[in-house]
């Protein structure tokens, strides 16, 4: 047994242990902390699986922003905890345990009898890379070969933000999402929020730019930019824009909008919906990615801020 395999077994065991902890621990807050640690270690598993693009996404969005979201909610709901008494009965527990064990066993069996050699689309993705002149095959799949998925996913982001906003009480509609944060102006949080965002902006734009040829892209870069924005908001140095702001709405639809325009142009002048002419593929994809990173950063940040709570001008 090699050292690598021992490391992998230990990693898998720790991840599973954290998974069990998040399910069985009594306090919801502890469960969320466990889930954040779980997400970061799962990112390590993705590194071991040689999927660096996914590892970056998982660490930034799954572990990082998702963790902030869950921790914030758990902190707000902390007081409601003792009121909950209607835990599942023993019969339900036993049935759920049997069902879950069966599901897990079936999946484990499926993993063990996967065909050898495994089917793969990697050669097809690599041999068609000339069509876009991007060297990162994952970006090629995201932006060209399965561009439809990526475009629809932007629409899902939009729908989610509309859903969150529509939960606002009538009196707050059109106002700023989330509470106005106020921190000690001489405190350390404000200090960090003054120092870090410029560095994060350089790193975020670099991650977007390098995504053409190396692991990275609009999702990972957008998550970094969103995190910097949120840091400034939490330190009280910036405020969320009111949801009635036209500029904000323009940014939110920029990504999917440009994607759609390019797609329809492909339908009219090219061979199919979302087909890029190979000569212009790279600049077109870059333009879409720039629009997308703005949309992604704004949407992720606003999803974390939550529903509008305050009227404009209050």
């Amino acid at each position: 047994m090699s050292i690598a395999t021992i490391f992998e077994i230990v990693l898998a065991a720790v991840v599973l242990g954290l998974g069990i902890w998040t399910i069985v621990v009594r306090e919801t807050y502890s469960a969320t902390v466990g889930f954040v640690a779980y997400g970061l270690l799962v990112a390590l598993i993705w590194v071991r699986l040689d999927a660096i693009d996914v590892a970056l996404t998982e660490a930034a969005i799954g572990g990082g922003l998702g963790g902030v979201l869950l921790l914030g909610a758990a902190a707000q709901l902390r007081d409601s905890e003792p009121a909950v008494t209607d835990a599942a009965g023993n019969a339900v527990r036993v049935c759920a345990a049997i069902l879950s064990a069966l599901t897990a066993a079936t999946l484990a069996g499926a993993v063990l009898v996967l065909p050898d050699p495994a089917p793969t689309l990697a050669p097809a993705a690599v041999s068609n890379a000339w069509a876009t002149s991007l060297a990162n095959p994952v970006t090629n799949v995201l932006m060209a070969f399965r561009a439809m998925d990526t475009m629809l996913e932007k629409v899902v982001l939009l729908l989610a933000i509309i859903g969150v906003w529509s939960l606002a009480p009538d009196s707050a509609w059109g106002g700023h999402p989330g509470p106005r944060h106020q921190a000690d102006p001489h405190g350390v949080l404000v200090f960090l929020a003054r120092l870090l965002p410029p560095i994060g902006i350089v790193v975020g734009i670099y991650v977007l730019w390098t995504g053409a040829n190396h692991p990275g892209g609009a999702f990972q870069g957008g998550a970094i930019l969103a995190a910097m924005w949120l840091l400034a908001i939490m330190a009280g140095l910036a405020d969320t824009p009111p949801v009635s702001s036209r500029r904000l709405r323009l940014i939110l639809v920029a990504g999917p909008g440009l994607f759609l325009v390019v797609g329809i142009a492909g339908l009219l002048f090219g061979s199919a919906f979302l087909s890029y002419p190979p000569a212009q593929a790279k600049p077109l994809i870059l333009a879409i990615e720039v629009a997308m990173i703005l949309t992604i950063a704004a949407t992720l940040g606003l999803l974390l801020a939550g529903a509008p709570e305050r009227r404009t001008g209050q």
Partner: protein
Amino acid sequence: MSLLGDIITIVAVSAGAFFFLAGTVGLLRFPDTLTRLHALTKADNLGLGLVVLGLLPQAASLRDGFKLVSIWLLGLLAGATVSQLIARAARQGESAR
């Protein structure tokens, strides 16, 4: 040259791992939040610094070396500021009790 580099790597990374281990022992043994913070910030920053120092001889280029050093600097900044935030919350929690 490469032998010297490898020796530096082995010594420094082992020392870094030792400080991480000591920091974790402190995290488990120290009595309260504030003393545990000492264990984490001090020992882990030194541990990370030593690991970075140990990896420098293995860096393929000067740029990779700078990347490693900037990881250490960002880690320092994060550790030093977040530890102060936790410490303030812990002290206020203590005096409120």
